[in-house]
């Protein structure tokens, strides 16, 4: 909560935004807990990389943006191991939501996903607008690295010149290796 919100009563919009953040945080915690419990069924009922990608692109296009999406191979995010699917889904959802919210949508945004035998790599990149909006302290991008670490991966999200680049690598392990 910001200082302003502590000294003056929040508006209904501020309150609604705060409640939504709490709900998002809870959903995020449930997702991580689900992965840690190893409950495939529960995780599959929630966010997957494929659904996050689809919904994220829809959100960006609804906001007036254009997304170039490259998958190598075409089904790169289909049938991922459950834990990686949940984490990739959470990260993609957050990264693409931030593109819709903060990017210069006059320029195309890019997501490139490559699935190799033992690793899933993806990058989400967008042009930073000439006057970037102020960050409002959402949990979002700062947590990406933490999400990736749950499955032994890495995620960085930072400005590179006039672009914002989110780079993620998640290891793909066989079920036998994980147990």
């Amino acid at each position, binding site marked *: 909560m910001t200082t302003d919100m502590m000294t003056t009563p929040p508006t209904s919009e501020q309150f609604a935004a705060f409640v939504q953040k709490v709900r998002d945080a809870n959903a995020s915690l449930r997702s991580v807990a689900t992965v840690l419990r190893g409950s495939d069924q529960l995780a599959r009922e929630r966010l997957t990389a494929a659904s996050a990608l689809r919904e994220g692109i829809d959100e960006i296009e609804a906001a007036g943006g254009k*997304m*170039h*999406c*490259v998958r*190598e191979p075409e089904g790169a995010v289909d049938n991922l191991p459950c834990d990686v699917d949940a984490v990739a889904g959470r990260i993609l959802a957050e990264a693409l939501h931030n593109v819709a919210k903060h990017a210069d949508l006059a*320029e*195309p*945004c*890019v*997501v*490139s*996903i*490559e699935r*190799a035998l033992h*690793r899933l*790599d*993806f*990058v989400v*990149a967008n*042009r930073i607008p000439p006057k970037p909006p102020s960050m409002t302290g959402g949990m979002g991008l700062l947590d990406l690295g933490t999400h990736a670490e749950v499955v032994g991966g890495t995620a960085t999200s930072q400005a*590179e*010149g*006039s*672009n914002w*680049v989110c*780079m993620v*690598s998640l290891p793909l392990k066989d079920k036998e290796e994980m147990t």
Partner: protein
Amino acid sequence: MIRVGICDDDEQTRDWLARAIGTDRELTVTRVAGSGEAALHRPGGVDVWVLDIRMNGISGIETCRALRAQSNPPQVLMFTALADTEAPEATQAGAVGFLYKGATQVQVCNAIEMAASGLFVSTQGAARELLHSSPAPRDPRAYRTIVLDPTDEVIASLLMQGASERHMADAARLTVSGLKKRLAAMRRRAGVDSSPRLMAALYRIRDIQRT
């Protein structure tokens, strides 16, 4: 007779330029293209290209770079609505000058004739930007290690814009198999083993100016 190519994704602008150039007996329009891809598809037979900077698909600056990489390169004039600030990158890409939308027919024809002679054409604003600009790449040595030649340059720019392999292969005039070999070599030089990682490396060392 100076052969002129027009490349702009706005039909009205193309028509206006063609009419303006048609008023000068020393100039003849030999190519009209609605995109950078179309200009690069069959780029010969032109002494001076007039290129829009901001186009869908390949930008004017990338098109300029690819045109200037040919063995017998044409001169390139950038045609822009504003963008004095784009002068440094356009010049680095090989542009010989700038024409501003709003220029008169006489100014357009004079600028093309000057460009054909190899003279630099510029407004005061663009000249100021050029004077005060610093070299673009944040780490030129690292970038040149990965991107060795103009073909790599076209591939790198399109890769960073999320282009498909087919699109990159066509723009770089390679087969898809040839493109894959190029990408593999670029990944090797960058010390990475996937396209997303190559993209992240390219973003890190080169602040692409998509136009």
